C-alpha cells in the first residue's frame, strides 16, 4: 500500500486533490481510497486529506499516520502544524513554494531524504498563470507524479478533465503539466 497525505488550507482544493489522485489511480486500474480529515470546514483553516493506493481492495479506515508521500500546499503550515509527522524515511515530499528549502528553514530536515524524492513547485504561481486563480492543487499533483513515479501524468490529466470538463480543466492540466516538467527537470 502507498499512502499520501495532503496538507493545506480550506479553499485550496485539498480535498479535491486527494479525490483527483484517487481517480487517476482508478484510471490506471489501481484500488484507491481518498477521504478528507473531518471537521468544521472553513476558508483558511488547516485541512488534511488522504489517499491510499493499493493493488487490492482497501479495507483500512484509519487516517494516514505514516505516509509514503506528503503534498504541502501551503508553507505557512510548516511552523504551526507538524506536517512531516510519521513520514517514512524514504518518503516523497512536494511543497508549494517559490522559495528554496534553505529559505523555508527546512533544509536540514529535507536533506535526510533522497534528493529525487523531494521537490518545490511554485504551484500557486502556475495556477495564477494558467487558471487565473490561486488554486495550487492540480499543479502539485503534476509534481507528485513526476517525483514519485506512482502515477502517469496522462492519468492525472484525465482525472482533472473528468472532474473539471472544459476550459477550467484544460487550464489546470496545463498547470499540472508544467509542474510535472519542472519537477522532472529539477
Amino acid at each position: 500500500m502507498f499512502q499520501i497525505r495532503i496538507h493545506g488550507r480550506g479553499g485550496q482544493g485539498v480535498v479535491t486533490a486527494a479525490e483527483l489522485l484517487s481517480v487517476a489511480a482508478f484510471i490506471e486500474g489501481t484500488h484507491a481510497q481518498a477521504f478528507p480529515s473531518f471537521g468544521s470546514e472553513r476558508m483558511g483553516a488547516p485541512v488534511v486529506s488522504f489517499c491510499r493506493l493499493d493493488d487490492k481492495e482497501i479495507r483500512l479506515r484509519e487516517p494516514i499516520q505514516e505516509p509514503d508521500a506528503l503534498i504541502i500546499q501551503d508553507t505557512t503550515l510548516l511552523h504551526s502544524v507538524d506536517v512531516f509527522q510519521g513520514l517514512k524515511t524514504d518518503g516523497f515530499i512536494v511543497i508549494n513554494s517559490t522559495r528554496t528549502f534553505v529559505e523555508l528553514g527546512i533544509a536540514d530536515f529535507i536533506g535526510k531524504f533522497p534528493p529525487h524524492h523531494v521537490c518545490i513547485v511554485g504551484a500557486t504561481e502556475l495556477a495564477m498563470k494558467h487558471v487565473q486563480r490561486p488554486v495550487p492543487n492540480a499543479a502539485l499533483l503534476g509534481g507528485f507524479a513526476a517525483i514519485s513515479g506512482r502515477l502517469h501524468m496522462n492519468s492525472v490529466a484525465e482525472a482533472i478533465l473528468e472532474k473539471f470538463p472544459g476550459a477550467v480543466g484544460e487550464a489546470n492540466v496545463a498547470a499540472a503539466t508544467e509542474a510535472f516538467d519542472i519537477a522532472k527537470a529539477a
Partner: protein
Amino acid sequence: MFKQMEGSEAVAKAVALCRPEVVCAYPITPQTHIVEGVGALVKDGTLVNCEFINVESEFAALSVAIGASAAGARTYTATASQGLLFMAEAVYNAAGLGLPIVMTIGNRAIGAPINIWNDHSDSMSMRDAGWIQLYAETNQEAVDLHIQAFRLAEELSCPVMVCMDGFILTHAYERLDIPTQEGVDAFLPAFEPVQVLDPDDPYSIGAMVGPEAFTEVRYLANDTQLQALKLIPEISGVFKDVFGRESGGLIHEYRTEGAETIVIALGSVNGTIKEVIDHMHENGAAIGSVSICSFRPFPLDELRDALTGAKRVVVIEKSLAPGLGGIVASNVRMSLRGASLPVYTVIAGLGGRTITMTSLQEVFEAAAEDRLPDLQFLDLDHGAVEHEIVRARRTRRSGPTAEHILRQKAGGLSK
C-alpha cells in the same frame, strides 16, 4: 460499471435507480450531500416521475414522507444526528403505520456537547422504533443495501433505515460498481402498496387503538421483524443472483472458523478490524470477526451459531448506553443466553475519535488473555477524566464538564 466516486454520490445514484416517486429532505446540517445528489438527478431529468420536496425541518421531511408513502408513492429521505432526533415522533409513526419508506442515516454523534463527527448514537437512539436497521460495512454495500432496502420495505410494509458511517463512508472516494437501470428494474418490482389513501375510496389510517387491540398491533409489528429475519437473507441471495455480488444479509463472518476470540462490530470499522485480524493471524492468533449487518431485526440465532466454539467475544461499538455500557453488547449477550463465555464491551470511535489498528490490536491481545474489563473506552484519557472527577467533587459550583475537559486538553489551567 466501476467508477471512482464518493459514497454519498454513489448512494444518490443508487436511490435514483430505485425510481423513488417522492424524495423529501431538509438539506441543512446535519445532512449528507446524498439528497443534494438526488435533487440534482431530478433536476437534470435523469430521475423522472419524482417529486423532490424541500421542507422546513427534519420533522417535516419524514412527515411528508409518511404522507407520500400513505398515498402509494415510493418514498425516500435521509438524515443524521440531531436531524433524526427531531423527526423522532414521525420515525415511530412511519413504522406504526406500516409505511415502506427508505431512509439513509449518515451516522453521526448526538449532542450535547455539539459534535458533528461520526458515531452510531443517532441510529441507535431509534433502534426500537420498529424500523428495520441495516448497517453498511463499505460504500459498495451501502449502494447495494439501498436497492435491497426498497424491496425489503415494500414486501413487508415496514420502513428501512440504511445506516452508513458519516464522513468515513459518506465522504470517502472509492472504486464502486453502480448497477445498471435494467438490473435494478429486474430486481426491484414496481411498488404495490398494501394501503393507499385514495379520494375515490376513502378510509383513514392511523386511527386511535385502545387497550383492547394495541397489544395485538404491537405483536404484529414484532412479527414483521421476525419475517424480516427470513426475508433479508433471501433478498440478499436474489441480489447476488442478479448482480453477482455478496451484499447485505444478517451477518458477515470473517475467519471465525477455529477462532477463540471473535470481534463483533457494526459498519465501516469492520474493515480496520479485518486488517488487524489478518495481521494477528500472521503471529498465530486464533481470532475472527462478525459484522452485524441487520441490527433490527437482531439475528439472535445466526449470531449464536457464528459464536459457537469461541472462548470470548469483544464488541467494538460506536455508541454508549450511559448507566449500562454497550447497546450492541447487550444484544449480543442475549444471543448467548445460557452460554458462559465473556462478552467484553469496548466503546470506540465516539464523536469521531479515530479507531486505529494499533489500539484495536492492543485490545484484542488483552482480550485473548482475558485481561479486559467488562466495559472499556478505547484510548480514553484517564488522566483527564480523573482530574475532572476530582475537580467537580471539590467544588459545588464546578461548571460545565465539556468545557473543562477541552481546556485541560488544550493544556490550560482549571481550578
